[in-house]
């Protein structure tokens, strides 16, 4: 029971911010996972294009992560006041 009372000390707003951050990370995980999977599939089909595919994969991953970090920034602002 003491563990539960500790959870209430945090405050509902900040707890929800943590939840929001988790949701943003789910989006990032799904997005980057799809990028990686399609890149690997393409590399398996055409191994000589590997280096081209690798650089484009990394660029696309950076752009998708940027969107996820939007959500993280909002949650951080909520959690810190």
């Amino acid at each position: 029971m003491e563990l539960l009372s500790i959870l209430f000390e945090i405050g509902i707003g900040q707890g929800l911010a943590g939840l929001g951050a988790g949701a943003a990370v789910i989006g990032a995980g799904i997005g980057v996972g799809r990028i990686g999977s399609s890149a690997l599939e393409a590399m398996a089909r055409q191994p000589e294009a590997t280096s081209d595919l690798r650089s484009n994969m990394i660029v696309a991953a950076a752009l998708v992560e940027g969107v996820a970090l939007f959500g993280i920034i909002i949650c951080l602002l909520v959690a810190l006041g």
Partner: protein
Amino acid sequence: MTTFATNCADTKIMSRYLTSLGIVLMLAFAGGNVGLWAQDHDSVHEAHAGEHHDGHDHAAHAHSDGADHEDAHTHHEEEFVAGEYIIHHIADAHDIHLFGDVHIPLPVLLYLGDEGFRFFMSSSFEGHGHGDKNFEDAQGVAYTLHAADGALPNGQPVNAGVITAVKSGSQLEVFDFSITKSVFGMLVILTLMVWMFISVAKQYQKNPGQAPKGMANAVEPLVLFIRDEIAKPSIGAKADRFMPFLLTVFFFIFFCNLLGLVPFIGGFNVTGTMGITIVLATLVFLLTNLNGNKHYWGHLFWPPGVPLPVKFILVPIEVFGILMKPAVLMIRLTANISAGHIIILAFTSLIFIFGEGGDALAAGSGIGVFSTLFMIFMYGLELLVAFLQAFVFTLLAAIYFGDATHEPAHH
């Protein structure tokens, strides 16, 4: 990649890029300074507007409660509060905190409205631990360096790290032009860049058509990479016009990111502060729209080949996009770099949280092994992110410039 130096005509253009970098760098420095000033200036303006939003008072209360809680602890031993430790290392500060009580003081430059300019070193502030620090100068102005979000005696809210000034009981308007930790980091990087590029450019001017020596061997592949992989494919024929800016922005972001990763020098977070990235994004915004040709603006407001009802939806989105694209550039860079620093600091904090201030040495040490290994892995990832974020910023800037100056072959 063709051997650069064998092509004489290219050599002359290269030295022109590199020497004009110096001028563009000065603009970036001035802009960054203004950006940082605006960050603090905003909080002072809020204090003066006298608007008391309920949210602000609530936040001020919550944070001053937190500050009281911490002051109570500093009297016994310093209890480790992970959130405060992380924020202290991410945020800007008026001195460089190396370890323990060792600080490198930095100049504080204030403009006090009617009172004029004030200059002193941040070591003049007295006060220890985590509380507010005070200083009174010879003209009777009392300065306070606020350690946490709170409220002034007259009720105006004030943010952490802001300097306020009181003279004869009345609050003065403070414009903070100090050389803070981020500005100092930026100055170091700018000096390094100016020295590096001017000396490399001189070498190309003195020995035209010969293989590069020394530092030029490292600079040349990066410059060629930006010209051949980023600028020429995205902008096409007019790439040379934008090369100085793209080179400056790439190296500035790359080196500032790397500076933030060096440990033990006080924890710089130059590109992780919104004040600096917003200036970079504004420069991209200005360059894109000032160089926009007829086709760019025409396609924005009247996209061809689109049915009329869809035009009504598309045009507001495109107009909104003019502002959103630089804003996204800003947030992407700030968030990636700050998040990287926060993760590394969080792994470090884990050791102290599990060690419970020396009470649970076994747990602390065990976590220490795991934490250190994970931190090394995160550092490797952050090195990749340092280069990648500079590359992505430059690439997107080049794409926006290309969109703005693109001449269609036919209509």
